């Protein structure tokens, strides 16, 4: 991985398959629409005589079985839109398993509000763990300064180590927060929040998205530790992280 763009490309190539077993065309069509912006191919496979409402089977990019569940439960978990995995954790369904097949979910056209909500989830998680590295790419100086209080507070929490990345020049000081400023770099195009989970791999998570047009983001979230570490390695290798 040589750039943040590479990280998105790698996730993009890993298309999963979601096969919907139901005779209800409407349900199948809805799921297809729901997944149209992510890297999941939705296939409808009606089976005569199967008890309705049917079920879904998820297969990984290699075609291997990853998981299956009833459409009732699947609908409850995904409705009204696809939630980031850490949100699903509170639904009571065997979410650990569900994460497995929704991991590295690619999304398109998130707006700033959706990006902020997901960012908040990761920052909250870092706050709860109180240890580890939190790397946040704000693109530019202004959005970071708007969050200055939040980040000062995070920096004072436990042994959290915070580094912020921006594309603008920087000559200010924010207490306990390291700021990497690299004008004219990829940092201006990518919004990211990467948390290494401290000593707990299960708390790893990251959001990475490219602003492809004004206020529209395209990217993925992941809780897969290897992918999170890859992002951290890239940032530490490429930039002057203290």
């Amino acid at each position, binding site marked *: 991985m040589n750039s943040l763009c590479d990280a998105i490309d790698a996730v993009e190539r890993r298309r999963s398959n979601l096969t919907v077993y139901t005779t209800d065309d409407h349900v199948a069509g809805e799921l297809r629409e729901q997944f149209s912006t992510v890297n999941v191919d939705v296939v409808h496979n009606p089976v005569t005589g199967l008890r309705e409402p049917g079920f879904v089977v998820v297969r990984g990019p290699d075609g291997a079985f990853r998981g299956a*569940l009833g459409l009732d439960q699947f609908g409850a978990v995904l409705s009204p839109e696809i939630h980031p995995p850490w949100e699903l954790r509170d639904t009571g369904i065997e979410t650990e398993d*569900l994460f497995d097949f929704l991991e590295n979910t690619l999304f398109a056209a998130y707006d700033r509000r959706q990006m902020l909500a997901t960012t908040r989830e990761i920052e909250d998680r870092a706050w709860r763990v109180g240890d580890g590295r939190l790397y946040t790419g704000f693109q530019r100086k202004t959005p970071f300064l708007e969050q200055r209080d939040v980040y000062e507070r995070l920096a004072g929490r436990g042994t959290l180590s915070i580094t912020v990345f921006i594309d603008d020049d920087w000559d200010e000081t924010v207490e306990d927060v390291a700021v990497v400023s690299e004008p004219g770099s990829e940092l201006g195009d990518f919004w990211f929040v990467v948390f290494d989970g401290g000593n707990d791999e299960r708390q790893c998570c990251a959001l990475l998205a490219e602003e492809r047009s004004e206020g529209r983001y395209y990217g993925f979230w992941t809780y897969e530790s290897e992918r999170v570490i890859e992002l951290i390695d890239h940032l530490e290798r490429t930039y002057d992280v203290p």
Partner: protein
Amino acid sequence: MDDDLGPVGVLEEADTHLSVDELLRLLSVPATRLTIIYLYDHPDTTADQLAAIIAANDAVSEASMATESEYDRARTHLYHSTLPRLEDHGFLEFDPKAGTVAKRNVPEPIYTFLGVDTDE
């Protein structure tokens, strides 16, 4: 699968070497019923595909989620029990090496008994 096995009488019309009791015993296994149902409109399939829908169907019954281990269990059971048995009765042809399953002679009354609407 529905627990209600429906009118048993219809099985008497099934042209097989099996008695109604034997058929009932065979069809009492959910994996067997699902295999027969699935083959109705997918006459050429694979054991992997059948294992996936059997694991999924179990998940529906238990309101849970099927993981890879449930899938592996369903697959093993198909290879060692369900498919060879159904092949013995002439309902299907199973190639364990290739993992392919092809529908052969499934008497119509069995479909009626399983609630598959064959008029559609």
